[in-house]
């Protein structure tokens, strides 16, 4: 068994931490795990993406094309950008909060709303306003915990492992909000 998870978002959205949390949870659930995240020049509002692969024995951290099981899109356009890596019928979880890229801000190009809507023809698309959910959980910064909770429903990792990993990886003052946010996603 190999699980291939793709993460996509905008620099500054906390993608690296989300990648770390998923890999840590998979490791504690007893799997071999490898991850990628592409950072560097892209971190200042540019596109960022990562991957987590877990299973019995993982060779490469890279997900071959068409092999993605799950896509965690922290921003709709960025989720759309990486769908070529996904299997047909894969889960595509999208945070609805749109972040316009420069060509859209400058009105040179359109934001691809329609293309994003049509993803549901090929994939199991789940859309959520993670920022609003996080606000209701008490901390707007816990949006990624909502996303992780939503994803955790479809993965073979127990919630107590997720809880433990969240506790260890978010600032202590934000732990409760993140765990509440995680379950808001999980029970959605």
């Amino acid at each position, binding site marked *: 068994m190999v699980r291939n998870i793709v993460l996509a978002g*905008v*620099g*500054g959205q906390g993608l690296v931490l989300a*990648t*770390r949390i998923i*890999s*840590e949870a998979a*490791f504690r659930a007893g799997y*071999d*795990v*490898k*991850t*990628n*995240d*592409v*950072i*560097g*020049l*892209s*971190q*200042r*509002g*540019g*596109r960022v993406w990562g991957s987590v692969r877990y299973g019995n024995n*993982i*060779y*490469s*951290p*890279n997900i*071959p*094309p*068409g*092999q993605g099981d799950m896509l965690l899109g922290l921003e709709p*356009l*960025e989720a*759309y*950008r*990486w*769908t*070529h*890596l996904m299997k047909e019928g894969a889960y595509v979880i999208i945070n609805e909060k749109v*972040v*316009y*890229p*420069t*060509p*859209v*801000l*400058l*009105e040179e*190009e*359109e*934001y*691809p709303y329609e*293309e994003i809507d049509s993803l549901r023809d090929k994939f199991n698309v789940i859309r959520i306003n993670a920022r609003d959910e996080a606000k209701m959980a008490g901390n*707007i910064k816990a949006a990624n915990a909502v996303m992780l909770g939503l994803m955790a429903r479809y993965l073979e990792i127990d919630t107590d492992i997720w809880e433990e990993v969240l506790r260890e990886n978010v600032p202590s003052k934000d732990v409760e909000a993140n765990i509440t946010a995680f379950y808001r996603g999980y029970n959605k």
Partner: protein
Amino acid sequence: MKKVLTGNQAIARGFYEAGGLVAASYPGSPTVEILETLKKYDGIYAEFSTNEKVALEVAIGASLYGARAMASMKHVGVNIASDPLMTFTQTAINGGFVLVSGDDPGMASSQNEQDNRIIGKFANMGIFYPGSSQEAKDYVKYALDLSERFQTPMMIDITSRVCHSRGVVKLEDREEHKPQGFKRDQEKYCMLPPYTFKAQHFMRERIEKLREYAYNAPFNILEEVEGSDTLIVTSGLMYYNLKELNLPVSIYKLGMVYPISIRRMRELSERYRRIIVIEEMMPFIENELKLMGVDCKGKEYFSFTGEIHTEDIEEALCRMGVVNNRKYEKAKAVEVVSRPPMFCAGCPHRPVFDILKKLNVTVIGDIGCYSMAVLPAFKAAHVSLSMGATLGVTKGMNKAMRLNGDKKPVVSVIGDGTFFHSGLPGFVNLLHQIDEEDNMTFIILDNRTTAMTGGQQNASSGRYNENDDMRVHIKALLNSIGIDNVKEVDQFNYKETREAIRQATREKGISVIITTRPCALKYRIREPHFYVDTDLCISCRTCVKLNCPPIRMKKYEGIDELKSYIDPDDCVGCSVCSQTCPVGAIKRSE
């Protein structure tokens, strides 16, 4: 005990476990995290030095004393450090010495794609090439051992993908390595002729001994498949990408890519009909094999640039007839609007480049967050090469212009980190042969941190951040060397800054402007947000052209024309947009 670590964290862990004592670095992607991790270990001295050359020298000093030492840097950093490296390597190594070079195939965050295995060989070093976090840790320990055993400096050449990738690593305890102290021996450590004559032979013998050791070394792994007439020689991540294909071919995985055992390769070449080399970037292993007279195929089938993925390997092996049925088709990337990086909300660089764009002057840029001024929204820097290059390039262009009767000004931009890294010698050099017709303006963007790589401290950040211990005053420093025309301006006072820059470009001679606003991201600066008064907004888009993340045009209910909008959640209240608005439509919320 096992733990999930990135390649960078694993390198730091390896150094710790091997009893490493002194480590130095200059921050640069992809290796920044190595030193940041080392700082958290007890019993290790770790510093970010002012540049890679100094970092290497700090590690050299510790190694000469017999301590295990490491210098880590991005690939282009090794260029800066190559002067001490090329001479130090002639000496007989005392304390284990390892140089970590972070290469960047595909240039995720670099200005070029140089393959530093070439530099490693040029410098007569053994080169390890890890492909996973576990290997990254193991190879640092091997490298430090071999460095002492063969009295050679060693290189760990690691790619950005492996630096940032995470994997499960088995942790071990730290072994103590007490330094034996520095033993004066001029013949060994003073690299002047005639001592250097002997050193050439010493280096050659050292590499040949290491080559002999490579024959049976535990990190060079031969996986033979019964009945295979094909042997693939590979290393690093390429091994793991290849393994994904699960092919019935033999593999020789090189943990150490230089030197390669000639004896082993000749034996293998007699047993296999076909030898294929898979490696990213340059044909390094391939050339080594060919120099040994081993017939092999490689770059004829694989790209010389960018990363090589599992599907690329499969595709090439298919063309070579090794694979018949392909599992993976290279997926066509989704064609959709791009997302170039941009200055953060409240970034102090924004007003400076807006002003420079509007003044339409030639700008010689440098390396840092402000390199992004090259990108579409501003396109306000016209040259961007390497760290600190702006000083010399600006002077040279200015001299050529004057000799050609061209009276236009030249503007140079450099950040504080880069100023200390390698800008300072360029500033001193400005004082030589000043001509009254010169017209050079130097803008120093002093944001009190080395921001691009995650906000490390630098030599002046202590003047703003009391937790940092260096407090060099750039203006006082420049004044003290005889550069008198130095102004400090607050660039969030847009008009004053514009006037200062405009005046400087009109003045002959050398003008320096230091902008003083700190990095909004590093120091989490947040003021009350601004908003657009739609009754006043004339839809001119002056604010949108500032390319600030929260500012865009929006359709408001009941208003036909699009008007500007500022997302209150993301605005940090720098006020620059409100100062550039021609009709005063952008107002502070509190």
